């Protein structure tokens, strides 16, 4: 384990340096996301105002606001560029340069992305969590911060990121067949955004659809951590949810390994 860290740590370090290189780019990216976030916020505000009811599907207006911002935070932190990065290396043939190094392809990407993530973590995490808690305090007048939920949320967030990473790596490997991922990547982002509960909470869906989506891996990405943060799950549900997260993580990890082993045998390197 220590050896593993020693070998892949430089990738994290390089990731930090890379993210720092393109920090302006990153700021624009986050600004765009925050804008989306506020559009969502005003949309739901209108829904609550026109409905007139105190709660909607078990969510108060405050819950909804917290859901919007925490789901934004979660999806930003658990975001993985893996599909694009992997697909691009396969497309332009630079995957060859990785293969001549005594390293695991997936871990090199993982550690590099973790490095790139640290900056977004620092920039987005604290202000957003504080903002959300202050908002809750201002509206309800009571300090409702639950440290246990918060710790569980962090744990769930880490799992969410890892699932997302390996899911994206699997997806990226489809470039071995498709050669170019531009179109399919876009479709994937939209579908995952919807099925992960990023746009609307999954329990707003018709119950059959909601149940099915709840067991799919995408629910583990945003819906699970956010509901834990909100304290909307009881203890057995939390246990089940963590179980599902672990299951999907193992599933995608094994899947990417299988795809990799099969692809390497039939690989042709594009371009020279």
């Amino acid at each position, binding site marked *: 384990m220590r050896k593993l860290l*020693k*070998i892949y*740590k*430089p*990738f994290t*370090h*390089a990731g930090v*340096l*890379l993210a720092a*290189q*393109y920090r302006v780019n990153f700021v624009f990216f986050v600004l765009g996301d925050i804008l989306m976030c506020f559009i969502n916020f005003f949309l739901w505000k209108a829904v609550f105002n026109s409905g007139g009811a105190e709660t909607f599907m078990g969510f108060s207006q405050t819950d909804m606001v917290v859901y919007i911002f925490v789901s934004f935070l979660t999806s930003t932190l658990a975001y993985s560029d893996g599909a694009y990065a992997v697909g691009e290396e396969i497309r332009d*043939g*630079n995957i*060859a*340069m990785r*293969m*001549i*190094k*005594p*390293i*695991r392809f997936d871990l090199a990407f993982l550690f590099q992305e973790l490095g790139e993530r640290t900056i977004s973590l620092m920039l987005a995490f604290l202000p957003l969590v504080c903002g959300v808690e202050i908002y809750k305090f201002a509206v309800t007048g009571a300090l409702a911060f639950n440290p246990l939920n918060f710790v569980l949320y962090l744990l769930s967030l880490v799992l969410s990121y890892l699932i997302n990473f390996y899911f994206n790596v699997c997806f990226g490997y489809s470039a071995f067949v498709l050669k170019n991922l531009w179109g399919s990547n876009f479709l994937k982002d939209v579908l995952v955004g919807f099925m992960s509960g990023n746009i609307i909470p999954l329990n707003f869906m018709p119950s059959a659809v909601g149940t099915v989506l709840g067991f799919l891996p995408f629910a583990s990405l945003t819906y699970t951590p956010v509901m834990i943060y909100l304290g909307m799950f009881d203890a057995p549900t939390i246990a089940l949810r963590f179980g599902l997260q672990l299951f999907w993580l193992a599933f995608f990890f094994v899947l990417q390994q299988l795809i990799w082993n099969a692809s*390497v*045998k*039939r*690989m*042709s*390197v594009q371009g*020279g």
Partner: protein
Amino acid sequence: MIHVQNLKKEFKKTVKEPGLKGSIKSFFKPKNEIITAVDDISFDVSAGEILGFIGPNGAGKSTVIKMLTGILTPTSGSCEINGKIPYKNRKSYVKEIGVVFGQRTQLWWDLALRETYTVLKEIYEVDDESFKKRMAFLNEVLELESFITSPVRTLSLGQRMRADIAASLLHSPKVLFLDEPTIGLDVVVKDNIRQAIKSINENEKTTVILTTHDLQDVENLCDRIVMIDKGKKVFDGGIDLLKQSYGQSRELRFVPVAVSDADKLNYGREFSLGESDLRVENDGHTVSVRFNNDKVSVEKILSYTLKTLHVKDISVTDADIEEIIKGIYKSGVSPDA
């Protein structure tokens, strides 16, 4: 050291008919075609040797290198390097080799060059002491000092290539694969790189396999050449052998005082040379005579020419390796065929 036996690689390629209609058709019903990029190639390389791998574009050189470095898995046949099979145990195998693909870089594009070396140091588990020594050595041979703090994307092609070669040598590999290491470089940088390769080969007995289109590389560096064309091996041997097998021809060029005098010469009858051993061209100003040096000596040709007519200028040139190889690429004939 390196043992390659009946190596073969086939690729499946989708054939697309031209135009939009063709695109749509191949989208729904792709037609595949099998292309044999490398066809039954065998050769051996002993430790400390520099082997030049040459052939026209698309001959399959890079594909062979990719199989030898563990990137591609051969369709059939085998290769064994240092007792290891590249594609079977990639991670432990690549620790012992260094690879440079001239058209790509293994450096981190956005980071300072020095950062790449620290990353590589950890990947290859080089200890601090040897790393320091190694960097000093590479610095001396490849002169990295002036740009080691610059981001890689700002390096010139020549600097980048030197940096890439240094990166491939950081862990003191036993075998070094260089795929077109001098592509696109100016004469001075090419020369630097050749010197560096030579000194590394001499100092550390590193086995080097090199593909190139620059025959100066071959003449200056290689002990031996393997030439492939359309995936097949057409020549294997030293440069001397290549010159002997193909390069017997020499060329005599002269400018006669009176052009009409040239008609007086008849090399064919004088030395009883057949068509294949003699070719005479006269462009109305200069006469060039290509002849087989095995059949008739330079001295005899010269004295016969000078006896028969007066010349303003005369010269004899050796067939250079470029001419020879151009000949082989064009005809594609192997010596044993």
